């Protein structure tokens, strides 16, 4: 048994998330990762934007900052630059990070600033009533796509890699041990680290797409998340409906706050 109670704001429980929402599973994986790494909660900050995912910091007994829609990354950048010794964790969703916060997302990755970003991808705007997000798959139904979505979705992990992130991984809440492992690796990485976590939204996505039962959504993850090594060898036809999971990028490169610190020292000695 793991004692989660030590890490949560118990008075806020039971949490607001729907039955079968995977966000609670991610929060637990994050708590275990933080505990096993022996991270100091006094020197860690969790920053979130708006959405179901962004309720996460409210349940955690740590320094927390719940900001405006899509703007978790700019706030987090400010926190990190003001005190680079802090460990800054950003919690965001597919709508928050890739729609209204899309520009912030690519530029934070480009800067390679030392932030750990957990992107909860549930394919939909859950909190506001099931509208399409930039990650809703083609053909899926949403309140703004009653006959099926026409717009191709972002490959968000690919976007982060192309923009310049140091560490990018994709996982899901069915494969919960892998989820914890990738969060732990991302927390240890110096640089912009993204973990895209596929999580079910039975209420806003599942009900419209023949997966109203939370168990059906978890089974979908079990059947369709494919290890990246296998995915790379698959034909386009075999890849239909499948999602690759694994560490997609792990490189060491110049990190923004370290470079900024060097610049300050250089200017002061001149």
């Amino acid at each position, binding site marked *: *048994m*793991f004692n*989660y109670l030590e890490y*949560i704001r118990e008075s806020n*429980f*039971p*949490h607001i*998330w*729907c*039955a*079968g*929402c*995977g*966000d*609670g*599973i991610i929060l*637990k*994986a994050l708590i275990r990762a933080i505990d096993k790494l022996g991270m100091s909660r006094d020197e860690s900050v969790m920053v979130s934007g708006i959405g179901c995912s962004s309720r996460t910091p409210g349940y955690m007994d740590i320094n927390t900052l719940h900001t405006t829609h899509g703007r978790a990354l700019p706030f987090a950048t400010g926190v990190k630059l003001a005190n680079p010794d802090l460990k800054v964790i950003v919690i965001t969703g597919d709508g928050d990070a890739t729609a209204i916060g899309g520009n912030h997302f690519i530029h934070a990755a480009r800067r390679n600033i030392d932030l750990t970003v957990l992107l909860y991808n549930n394919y939909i705007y859950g909190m506001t009533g099931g509208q399409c997000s930039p990650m809703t798959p083609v053909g899926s139904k949403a309140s703004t796509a009653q006959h099926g979505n026409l717009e191709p979705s972002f490959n968000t992990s690919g976007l982060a890699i192309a923009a310049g992130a140091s560490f990018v991984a994709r996982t899901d*809440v*069915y494969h*919960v*041990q892998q989820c914890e492992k990738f969060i732990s690796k991302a927390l240890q990485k110096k640089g912009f680290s993204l973990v895209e976590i596929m999580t079910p939204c*039975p209420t806003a996505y599942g009900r419209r797409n023949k997966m109203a*039962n*939370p*168990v059906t959504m*978890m*089974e979908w993850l079990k059947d369709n998340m494919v290890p990246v090594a296998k995915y790379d060898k698959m034909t386009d036809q075999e890849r239909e409906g499948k999602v690759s999971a694994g560490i997609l990028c792990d490189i060491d490169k110049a990190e923004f706050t370290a470079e900024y610190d060097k610049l300050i020292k250089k200017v002061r000695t001149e």
Partner: protein
Amino acid sequence: MTEEQSARKEPAVITVKPEWCKGCGICVAFCPKDVLEMEGGTAKVLRPDDCIKCMLCELRCPDFAITVE
């Protein structure tokens, strides 16, 4: 026998907190030993003796409602 191995041999104590359980059924569906069942909208522990302490119900419970000792 290591401490961990002997701990696994002890009978499992599985606790469900009914006031936090939202009845999603994930623990029941993915328990490899069918230890749990849904009753009255929440998970119930019906066959604790069959539990192998794989901890998957605790790990996957989104509601912080199940613990396995």
